């Protein structure tokens, strides 16, 4: 029954990332980048969504892997 002491903190961090993800992946953030422009040749919305997605995954990995047991 031994739990790592930061379990609750991890859960909190992940829940915060869930909220961050909800914000990043939806209106109105989405509308900001929903323009027929290109970032380095890549459509802006496409670049934004995949960039935000990768950022979220990286943060999730960071939140859960630090102080690994």
């Amino acid at each position, binding site marked *: *029954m031994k739990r790592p002491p930061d379990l609750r903190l*991890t*859960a909190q961090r*992940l*829940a915060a*990332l*869930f909220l961050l*993800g*909800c914000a990043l*992946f*939806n*209106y109105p953030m*989405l*509308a900001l980048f*929903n*323009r*027929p422009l*290109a970032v*380095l*040749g*890549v*459509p*802006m*919305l*496409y670049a934004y*969504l*995949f960039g935000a*997605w*990768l950022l*979220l*995954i*990286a943060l*999730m*990995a960071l939140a*859960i*892997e630090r102080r690994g047991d």
Partner: protein
Amino acid sequence: MLQGWVIVLAAFAYLGILFAIAWHADRRADAGRSLIGNPVVYALSLAVYCTAWTFYGSVGRAAATGIGFLPIYLGPTLMLALGWLVLLKVVRVAKANRITSIADFIASRYGKSQLLGGLVTVIAVVGVVPYIALQLKAVSNSFTILSHYPEIVMPDRAVAVPLWQDSALYVAAVMAAFTILFGTRHLDATERHEGMVAAIAFESVVKLVAFLAVGLFVTFGIHGGPVELFDRAREAPELARLMVADDTAGGYGRWAGLVFLSMFAALLLPRQFQIAVVENVDESHLKRAVWLFPLYMFLINLFVLPIALGGLLHFGAGGVDADTFVLTLPMAHGAEGLALLVFIGGLSAATGMIIVETIALSTMVCNDLLMPVLLRLPRLGLHERRDLSGLLLGIRRWAIALILLLGYAYFRVAGEAYALVAIGLISFAAVAQFAPALIGGLYWKGGTREGALAGLSAGFLVWAYTLLLPSFAKSGWLPEDFMSQGMFGIDLLRPQRLFGLAGLDEISHCLLWSLLANVGAYLGVSQWRTPNVREARQATRFVDGVIDRGADGWRGSARVKDLLPLAGRFVGPGRAREAFAQYARSRGAAGVEALPADAGLVHFAESLLAGAIGSASARVAVASVAKEEPIEIGEVLDILDEASQVRTANERLQELDRMKDDFISTVTHELRTPLTSIRAFSEMLNDDPKMPLAERTRFLGIIVAEAERLSRLINQILDLARLEAGRVEWIRGEVDLAGVVRESLDALGQIVKDKGAAVEMRLPGAGPVVLADRDRLVQVMLNLLSNAVKFVAPGEGRILVEVDAADGQARVAVADNGPGVRPEERELIFEKFRQGTGDGGTLTGKPQGTGLGLPISRRIVEAFGGRMWVENAPGRGARFLFTLPLKGGDNGGAIATGATGGSQ
């Protein structure tokens, strides 16, 4: 060349590899060296989420809606971000309750209701079988297209081929064989299939590699990189449109709806539940999967838009179905090997889904649909049969075959119809109906069986009316005016404009109404009555995660000689005997027959059976041999109350346990220090016989000193343990405190002289008399005085010892001019193994004592009704004081009479 036989050979070679992997993993599992016991395999197997619908369909969606394919994968990412809060809880509860499927989970939560389990099974079968049909279609289509190489022909005539030439039929048959072989090898008490999971993880790698290969080929092989590809696409206005999302309220609404929907699908699809929860070997695997599975989805989606744009640029609109671009683009460029790889990738995506989904569904059909019925049919004579495990496996195998047959039949009937093409999201919406009952049931104790039944039924009906029937109508199977005029011609009942709600796409429209009905009915009907005994008990288990050994709401007698044969009938006599023997050992019973016929035994047998036939059926089976006596509600309240008391007590115990652990680890550490140095010096003496005498003497001196320290430490630990356990024999008598002080100072005379310290005494000639153990008081004084000597600087130490009496209390004070004790440490130093760090906050060199003297002293003083503390000495330094009640004084009665004092 890609003749038909090459493709078939490749497909069978691939399936052969799958068999080999599954077989190997099963062998390893039997040998106890699990192949799937690592988080990466777990994360990869979760990718069974990505089916042929992802593999081929994503590009099709992207060609039609641009970035609109993405929400389906953003949702699961968000669900995994909630993984620690939701998924982990589901996994824990499922493990603790031996849950075998999502139907079992929901049925078990609401008092092990068979009706509820059956309803969930029906919804899952109706919602998911067409989805299986879609996979068969994908494989069949890709085979047809590939076999026409180098021509690119759309398989819109696929359905017209005679039955025996239909590749989908063979796929279905092979899949049935595979699933039966590895899904129903034996009845497991935990319903896990290691071989299958290993094969699924492998399939996930294959489909990812195949898809990335096409993506790289299209982006860098056909075009000069993504920038060039996007630039070319931007020149065509109808392609430029794909690079932005639908910029209307409806467009964003649909987007949010899809994110929300797929979030639930990632947990609630029967195959996801099977892989994520039932097949989970170790909950810690979830940790890695939380980011690895989203990363997988990220990678498999990276090239979807480039492939869609590349396909549209190459083929133009029409002619070639965008759903086939993944396959037809390599074909059009003559990349035969790549095309074959894509076919294998699509095959792996489809077969992975089919295998897991069929296993999950067959378990549900067997445990939650057929078993409850069979158990109730006395004519079948189930109670008399010796061994039912064969029958159970037979049912599962037939269920698997039947489900695949149903899938195939749907594929033949539906063909290219809308009802099949759109089934992916329709399925998602069907399983989303499980969300209120499942997730609500994890966090809210008030839900009742009727509430869950009402919610699920209402949601399911609304789903069928607003999504399933319209898909039939769009396929031409229902009259057109059903859609345009509503049922019975009532305009308000138009299926996709329900009550006149317009402006939403069909998925969001269905989600809104069905979840509204679902949640409303679930909450509303649950208010009708309070949860009964069984529901309350299960609610506590699911919501609080409290697992008790008592039978849930059972009070009944069931003897081993009834329960063992019963369990044997379902899980096989040998396995049952083994499990009972293990339980007997854990209970400390002499043997299986010696087990007491109590509630714990009933509970054990029930949970053993639950692993094989589901919780609801297990209830019925156990009820057939146990005599149930229902419990009154008052007793249930007692049980619940008890549970919370138990929890508090449990927390306290854990705290104590932790303190004990700390203590032991400190003691071990303290003992090791002298031991290490004794050993080191002894080894040096041993290794070097020619060591000079002076050196040798010095080393021996250290060894003797360290050994003395060690034995002192051990004595003190034993002393403290005795004090704490209250097992000290006190010799009480009248003690003259001034005498004790003088005696102690005499004993320390040499040490004081060595340190060059000056000692001043202010004592009465014959001191206050207290009732205590003289030797113990000497021990306290020696400790205080030696501490004082230890901490003063050499040559300039001044120690003041005072003894006086007032208010019925004798008081002894020892002051020094050492570094003193910092205010925040004044209580700490009385704890075990804590030593002061001195006034300046720096350690005063090596630890100079055992760290046990002060705690022991304080306990001794407290044992005689006194008090010990430390304060600042006038000027600088520390002043330790203790008081003891005077003999015959007012407080004489307060002297602790036993040895239990000071047990704080």
